[in-house]
């Protein structure tokens, strides 16, 4: 067929595209390598103080030590699981409250100014209060994570509910649908993409909550390692924990993004 005959021009186009993509990735990797190399060299020649700024080779040593006694897995595992519980419960609770607001316009109108204020309030300011009320336990950390993500979830999911195609709702009404049926057959399913994208935002937010919570509770987790390392001036430990945190955050974000892509393909 005509379309199957790839012209020389098209081949060149595809080649140029691949080349461009390849050079972007190579530059990205090079930048990372350069950063760590510069850091290492600068510390080695004492341009910077490795005691304060740490050093890649020291970070590597720290990672090896932490792996040997297994504590790296414990702390990372704790932070990751707290985060997952935090963003899942924040998303679920937020969605449930959004359903309530959708159900009763009166409640939605009444709560509107409160939600706006709560949304603007930096939730981390509530940390000490939560610590006093709930105590220095894992629950405090999860509540922190939940609190930080729940308001955004309510606002975003409610917005998605409200922007559901009115004609689709009308179609259901002509078929004699009840309010519950309108919710389950059209409003919720058409808001799934919005809920997933909120989930993506919540991964980051919940992680902020967890780290702040771990700073305050100071028992375990990467946040604890960071605050502890800072207090006893072990900057290697701090840098190591931050790096692990960055990787863990990226992996969690990417898995939700992957899940989103899968889901969108299905629809």
């Amino acid at each position, binding site marked *: 067929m005509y379309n199957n005959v790839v012209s020389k021009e098209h081949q060149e186009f595809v080649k140029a595209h691949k080349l461009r993509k390849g050079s972007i990735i190579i530059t990205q990797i090079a930048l990372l390598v350069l950063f760590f190399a510069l850091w290492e060299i600068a510390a080695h020649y004492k341009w910077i103080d490795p005691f304060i700024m740490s050093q890649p080779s020291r970070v590597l040593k720290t990672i090896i030590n932490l792996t040997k006694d297994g504590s790296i897995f414990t702390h990372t595992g704790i932070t990751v699981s707290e985060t997952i519980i935090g963003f899942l419960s924040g998303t679920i609770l937020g969605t449930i409250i959004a359903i309530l607001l959708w159900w009763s316009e009166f409640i939605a109108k009444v709560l509107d100014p409160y939600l706006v204020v709560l949304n603007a309030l930096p939730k981390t300011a509530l940390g000490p209060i939560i610590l006093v009320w709930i105590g220095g336990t894992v629950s405090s950390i999860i509540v922190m994570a939940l609190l930080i993500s729940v308001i955004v979830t309510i606002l975003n999911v409610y917005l998605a509910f409200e922007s559901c*195609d009115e*004609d*689709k709702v*009308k*179609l*259901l*009404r*002509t*078929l*004699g*649908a009840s309010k519950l*049926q309108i919710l389950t*057959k*059209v409003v919720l*399913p*058409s808001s*799934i993409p919005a809920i997933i994208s909120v989930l993506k935002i919540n991964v980051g937010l919940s992680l902020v909550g967890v780290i702040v919570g771990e700073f305050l509770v100071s028992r375990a987790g990467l946040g604890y390692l960071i605050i502890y390392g800072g207090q006893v001036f072990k900057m290697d430990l701090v840098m190591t924990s931050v790096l692990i945190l960055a990787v863990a955050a990226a992996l969690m974000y990417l898995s939700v993004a992957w899940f989103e892509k899968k889901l969108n393909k*299905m*629809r």
Partner: protein
Amino acid sequence: MVEKVVEIKNVSMNYHTLSGETRAINNLSLDINNGEFVSIVGPSGCGKSTLLSMISGILKPTSGSILVNGEPVVGPSSNVGYMLQKDHLFGWRTVLKNATLGLEIQKKLNKESQAYVEHLLDEYGLSEFKHHYPKQLSGGMRQRAALIRTLATNPDILLLDEPFSALDYQTRLAISEEIWLIIKKERKTAIFVTHDIAEAVAASDRIIVLSSRPAEIKNIHDIYLTCDLKTPITCREAPEFRHYFNKIWKELDVHV
């Protein structure tokens, strides 16, 4: 014997918003007979959709009454099927699941009704697409799927609110012919709102011309076209076609 399936008696409708009151329908009376194909034409915003919404039972008239099959309309009923401007197939449901939506909502989904829907999909050329998602269908197929969703609950009366206006002209001609044939084959009464005069003349037994808002009946035309195969496309060739077209065009009195 002619049997009235829809009786609209002295119906008026006012909309209330904070900026004021809008009278959409003014003291309108109209009967629709069993098996008829009636078109409603009128200037945009005159109250055509409002009228259909009241017949379907999702909107209550301010005054007057509407009877369907002799019974007053109190809410949506499975006797009346409504087709909206766009197909509104749900992207997250397969064609089959879209088609059974009404049955699901009315809690009538069982082996028998499911078989009926599959029969309709077979009959109207969608059986091999029944497990496909709507985005894999062409515009015409989507409209057919939407009609089958409406037919699934087996209503006697179909309300069609400019169902083809989102389609391009070529598709529109073809699909309106197809849908017309399906409606005739299934022996449904159809109330068809359109802004396309030619489409209305070609398809209808009767055309109701509405005035601008508040809608009142301006004129009613019984359409008699001499053509062999009485289908919309062939009827466009009938000698009387232009005559009806021009008359209705003048009555609509479009100023640009």
